[in-house]
């Protein structure tokens, strides 16, 4: 049965009537029309659906929307804008990171939390912090350059 669920999405309060076990990803994409988190695996293995839930990088494909009730959800599009880019977004552009780009939510949203908590990470901390995320085009080298660049800019 549908339930009424309220949470904040990129700074706006949103109210929806939806089956509470629906994954947050489907609600954000289909009910709330924000396309940027993406379905990659539905198994919390790849990161393409990553959003911040109260600041924590979260695989939205595997989080029931009921668990997001009352939280603040931020997506890649809410992290920064062309006018006010997040330092990681600026660095990903300077380094021309994405190829197909379908994986970007995972890398940028995870790295954003990493740099927030560890503003000057070592190379190993960057790699460990991003471990598990997938990029099939093999842009690993550019991702690492961009995260280092953003860390230096901080």
């Amino acid at each position: 049965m549908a339930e009424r669920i309220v949470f904040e999405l990129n700074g706006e309060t949103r109210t929806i009537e939806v089956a509470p076990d629906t994954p947050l990803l489907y609600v954000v994409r289909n009910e709330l029309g924000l396309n940027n988190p993406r379905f990659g695996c539905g198994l919390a293995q790849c990161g393409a659906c990553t959003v911040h839930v109260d600041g924590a990088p979260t695989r939205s494909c595997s989080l029931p929307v009921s668990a997001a009730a009352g939280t603040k959800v931020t997506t890649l599009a809410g992290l920064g804008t062309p006018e006010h880019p997040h330092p990681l977004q600026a660095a990903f552009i300077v380094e021309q990171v994405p190829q197909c780009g379908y994986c970007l939510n995972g890398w940028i949203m995870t790295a954003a939390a990493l740099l927030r908590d560890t503003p000057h990470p070592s190379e190993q901390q960057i790699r460990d912090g991003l471990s598990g995320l997938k990029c099939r085009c093999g842009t690993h080298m550019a991702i690492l350059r961009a995260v280092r660049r953003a860390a230096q800019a901080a």
Partner: protein
Amino acid sequence: MAQFAIDRRSLFKGAGALVVSIGLPGGVATAEIGGAMKPPLSPDRLDSWLAVKADGDVVAYFGKMDMGQGVDVAIAQIVAEELDVPVERVNVVMGDTAWTVNQGGASGSTGIQKGGIPLRNAAAEARRVLAELASQRLGVPADRLEVTDGVVAVIGDPARKLSYGELIGGRYFDLPMTWNGKIGNDLVAEGQAKPKPPNAHKIVGQSTPRFDVPAKVFGKLDYVTDIKVPGMLHGRMIRPPVAGALPLAVDDGSVRDIAGVQVIRDKGFIGIVAEREWDAVQAAERLRVTWSETAPPFPEMAALYDHIRQAPVVKREVPVATGEIDPAFTSAARIVEAEYEWPFQSHASMGPACAVVDARADGATLWTGSQKPHFARDGVAHALGLPQDKVHGIWVPGPGSYGRNDAGDAGIDAALLSKAVGRPVRVQGMRYEGHGWDPKGPASIHRARAALDKDGAVIGYVFESKGFSRIDIDTNESDPSHSLAGQLMGLPLKSLQGFGVPAESYGFASKRLAWETIAPLLDRASPLRTAHLRDPVGPQIQFASESFVDEIAAAIGADPVVFRLRYLKAPRDIAVVKAAAERAHWDPRPSPRPDRNGDILSGRGIAYAQRSGAVVAIVAEVEIDRRTGKVWARKFIVAHDCGLIINPDGLRRCIEGNVVQGTSRALAEEVAFDRAKVTSTDWTSYPILDITDAPEAVDIVLINRPELPPAGAGESSIRPVAAALANAVFDASGVRLRRAPLTPERLKPALA
């Protein structure tokens, strides 16, 4: 903090509203555009390749594709170069069958190599025509005019000028091109004008940023997965649990409690649609199907290579046969031989394929991520029984594309579901389909033999591959016989036969390079059907052939670089091998290195390959943890020659992606299966290179050859990666791994 403009091209919606009416130098304005009055799309019309908008911006209509490596940027550079306009003013429209002719889509890394030719010619022709038109309007001979940034001005009198926008903006070029009559990769069209010589290039050869990156980074670029059409339903497919099993009964009642679900079935084709996507996902999981008892069709995974060895040969070709092979082996002082094995590999795109189709009685629209959208359109037309010109194919970026992946299947699935329910349908696969049911890169074995004389010279060389066909499923989706849906509905397999041989220029005294294909494992829709995966059969063939070249060198105690240079014939091949060795500070000595002690072993290896006009040499430096058997590809040095370079930075990133994906395939990737099905159906069972295992550096030496036409770079540098790694593992450890991937499970026992 810097600000970024999202490039207008990224948000470009439909090409139709760009140009307003038609006209010509000395010709007649014929029509207003926006749709109905658009000139017919035909390769022999200049206006099918280029248009100038009222504001002077240029639109280039490109019938190939960019899959994230910046081919569209290179095309914009080529067009801007010939037209003398800033590259920022060129919009590249691609992948829309209403606006672009079929140049073959993304295919064999020919986007620039072949796809750029008509665009270059068209831009040169357009510049000639515009200069002629300016000459008439200004009353000055064309040879007294110069073009700067899209403005034609009188030399020495720059106040007398006309911009391209003023000359033709908003009107079409109603002019002919000479067309060779071909469609696809080999399509050539040319005008009267000759393109610029390379020494006049100002834009070609300059690093130019990608158009799509800002929109992707800000989450503002829509993918095919994001297409939403009014009235659209969400579809999911049901695949057999045992490959080859057919549904005997489908229990609609098992999903009746899910609102609005419909089950669509035609022979083995079973799909469900629902109003809400999550309902479709759940219904697909829950739908109860009774399947036929089918004998599991596959061999045990452990017996795969024996199966290949023993399987009857369907087709054999000997593309290279030089010198007297048999006498060489009869008289040999020594024979070196080895056999190599390469597994099935998956495209494993970031997202399972997605497509949206709106099938109506009189026509249809297809939104697809296929890298060959014209052919995908043809396949959908075929499946719906519609003429091709009644189906509009629109490419929207997909979740990764490295060949004939699952994208084409999604289009036909969506088409059949849409036709059945009379509404637009969006189909997206689940993860198990992306890994489990995509067409696979073929598994193969490779046998190599070398005959050496008493001085260690190679007097005979035989290299023979045997494996599943690279084109069991065709390279494009134009024929539903080559789709899962078609095969599930009973269309007979049309397995095509193809493999390949090593691409090199070793001048051995006699040489035979051959291949053999075997039949697919199943005579119907199969999760182990084989098709083109990035650099089709290149990584496996070159893994074997370049490993074997090192084995010959080791057999005679020669340094691997010195040995290669002793036999290589093609000057460009010699140049890349030398350039890679020099940049790597290669210290000549035989492999393996003599001092192999400690927990961490390190070593270096080289491999090289030609590919369709490009040539690449790679030095890999590895570290091996003796305690675990794990290989870390610590550093690569890549020397890369693809002829004339259009965009150096774009090329570097393309090479990095090739090298990292190649490392993943060499060290980690292997499709697992049991006798009934593919069992590597997610990222845990089909791991790819994790970022913790990314190299420390990929050092790239670009060799520019302005005297040569540009060749492709999308696949050439993936080809020698696995062999360079295997050779480095041998150098570090003395262990020769002949079966890919080079996993800890295989290396550790041998390290003892």
